[in-house]
């Protein structure tokens, strides 16, 4: 059975007879069954009638043979020697009272047929024979055969064949065409349903196409918004970088002012105080006061110097990032007593001031963290350019921390217990760079910083 409802390649194709073949399928199977029904109904009754009639004729022949044999026996018992010659006369007259469809034959015990005095040249065809023994004095003397014509039975069966054949044919036609008619209706409905299904499929395909177009349009719009967002982010990053640069420039200005004005003034004050000290040597009090004032001035000068240094590493302006990092490493080694190895390679193009300041500050912060928390003995600092980006690596052999601790430290500002790593990451991301910290307890810590050159 084939009921095809698969979507066709051509959406305009309608269901055809090849797609819905229920009627042909049913017809192919009902035809042999209907033929079988016609044969069985048409032939069963005539055959049964023929068989029953044959049974009846055979029983009649048997009964008649036994009756005639009894008559023959009675007569033959009076003439046991020549009964063969007397019996024909008897039979001839017995036979005259019987139906003409009855044939009688007598055969003696040696198989020889008696001459019955009737014309027996034409023995009718299709005879049903039955026999009965003829006994004389209790001994078998021969057999009497009675034959009845079966033609009438055959004619009756053939006559029955006509109405029952018509009946069987009618039933077969009903059995064949009624289901086919119903199946035709069902097939028509199925074809309608399939047509509707195809129509729905086409509508669905159209809807899918529309939906894909909408998705594509929305994707395009989203991509545009994303690009715009990225541009805005880049713009914000530029503005931020510019703001950082301005802030740095402001700091350097303040530092330069402090250095040029307050520092110079304090230096002059100190020189004056030193002259006063030399000239009022006899006066212990003046001397003491001047000394005290000088000490206070030195402390102030040192304080200002540290403040200036903290506002802007003047060494960057004076000697550049490479020298500043080397100097930072050397000063850190001298100050902490740790063994600090450094490798600084920078291209001639250099970096923007904001990048240099950020790298310097993050190197400072990393060394400060080592001093405070790592309990390290050796420190290695590397700075080098790679594919347009500037990379900084600070590695120690300290006690290290767990990755969870690193994650917490990078996400927690210093006021909440962080180690300055949060500020490093913010500074790094603000400039479009990345910060990565590798550390395991007992295995030291590595800080990897990557920033754009410009």
């Amino acid at each position, binding site marked *: *059975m084939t009921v095809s409802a698969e979507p066709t390649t051509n959406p305009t194709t309608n269901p055809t007879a090849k797609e819905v073949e229920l009627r042909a399928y049913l017809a192919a199977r009902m035809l042999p069954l209907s033929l*079988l029904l016609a044969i069985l109904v048409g032939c069963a009754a005539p055959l049964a009638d023929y068989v029953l009639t044959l049974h009846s004729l055979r029983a009649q022949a048997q009964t008649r043979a036994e009756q005639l044999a009894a008559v023959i026996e009675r007569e033959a018992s009076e003439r046991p020697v020549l009964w063969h*010659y*007397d019996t024909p006369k008897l039979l001839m*007259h017995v036979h005259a009272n019987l139906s003409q469809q009855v044939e009688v034959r007598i055969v003696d015990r040696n198989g020889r047929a008696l001459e019955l005095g009737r014309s027996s040249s034409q023995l009718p065809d299709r005879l049903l024979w039955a026999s009965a023994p003829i006994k004389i004095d209790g001994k078998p003397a021969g057999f009497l055969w009675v034959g009845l014509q079966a033609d009438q039975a055959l004619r009756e069966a053939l006559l029955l064949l006509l109405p029952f054949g018509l009946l069987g044919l009618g039933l077969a036609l009903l059995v064949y065409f009624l289901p086919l008619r119903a199946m035709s209706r069902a097939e028509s409905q199925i074809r309608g349903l399939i047509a509707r299904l195809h129509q729905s499929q086409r509508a669905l395909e159209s809807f899918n196409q529309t939906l894909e177009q909408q998705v594509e349009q929305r994707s395009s719009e989203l991509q545009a918004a994303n690009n715009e967002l990225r541009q805005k982010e880049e713009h914000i990053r530029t503005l931020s970088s510019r703001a950082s640069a301005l802030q740095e420039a402001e700091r350097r200005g303040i530092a330069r002012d402090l250095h040029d004005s307050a520092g110079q003034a304090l230096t002059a004050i100190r020189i004056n105080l030193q002259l006063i000290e030399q000239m009022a040597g006899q006066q212990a009090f003046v001397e003491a006061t001047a000394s005290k004032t000088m000490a206070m001035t030195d402390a102030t000068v040192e304080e200002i110097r540290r403040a200036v240094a903290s506002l802007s590493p003047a060494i960057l302006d004076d000697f550049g990032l490479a020298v500043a990092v080397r100097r930072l490493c050397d000063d850190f080694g001298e100050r902490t007593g740790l063994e600090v190895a450094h490798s600084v390679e920078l291209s001639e193009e250099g970096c923007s001031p904001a990048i240099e300041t950020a790298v310097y500050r993050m190197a400072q912060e990393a060394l400060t963290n080592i001093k405070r928390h790592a309990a390290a003995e050796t420190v290695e600092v590397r700075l080098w350019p790679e594919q347009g980006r500037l990379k900084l690596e600070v590695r120690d052999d300290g006690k290290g921390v767990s990755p969870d601790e690193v994650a917490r430290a990078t996400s927690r500002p210093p006021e909440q217990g962080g180690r300055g790593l949060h500020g490093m990451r913010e500074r790094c991301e603000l400039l479009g760079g990345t910060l990565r910290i590798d550390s395991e307890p007992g295995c030291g810590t590595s800080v990897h910083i990557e920033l754009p050159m410009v």
Partner: protein
Amino acid sequence: MRRKPVFLWAAVVVVVGAFFGAATFAIVNAAGDGVGPDPTIRGNTGAFVEPRGNEERLFLAGSGSNLPLTRALVDAFVAGHPERAKVVVFESIGSSGGVRAARDQAVEIGLISRSLREREQPYGLQVVPYARVAVVVAANPSVSDTNLTRDELVEIYSGRRTTWSDGAAISVLQREQGDSSHAAFARVFPAFARADAEAYAAGRFRVVYHDRAMQNALFVTEGGVGLFDFGAVQTQGLALRLMDIDGVRPSVVSIEDGSYPFYKDLSFVYTSESGKRPLVQAFLAFVASDGGQQVIRDGGYMPLVGGGQ
């Protein structure tokens, strides 16, 4: 792809085949084995009596009408001749049976009470008429009537008259069609022949098939009447009522003078081979002798010595 129901067709073929196979079996079973008597052995196949060889004997058999006279002749023939002990007269087998038995040489001499029929001519039998006997209307001894006219006889056989003159019921006893006694009446009395044939076809009366059966039936049937042989009555001294026909009493004299027209001739038939046997020749010679002629006359028969066909 639609597949053809090959298995369904195969199943249909199997069912139809089984159906017709079963039907054929039922028909064959109902019709029996279909074997009847062997058609190749129909008709004359020779004698049904064992060949006699060179044994000297004289068997005689045939019509019951011949038997009383023939037995009287045989008794006279063998009287005083112990060597003729092998002469036997069998019970009635009818004229036709006598012809076939003589043809087959089952007997040496067949006894017939009619002439040979056309289909019996080719047998080449010798026919020797030896006596003529009146056919009488015999009745049960209780019947009081002694005379019947021809019309009354026709009325009785046609069923229009059913009682005797004393009111007793008439019970007709018929012989089978072709019987020599009926033939003797039919030969000279066509109206009787028609009435007799109609009664026989209608099954109106009781039919007996041998002279002895007729004889017994006439004795035991009240009001019974039938055709019988005058010679048989005379020879055996039967106390039957013999009817005069139109006032003519049946007797040797009346048939000799022709006043009584209902009679039949009794004949011997034998093959030429049987005719050469000494005992047959001796018997035939005895019948033709004065002694034999006397026996015939004494029995109520008219001798036909010297006659022949």
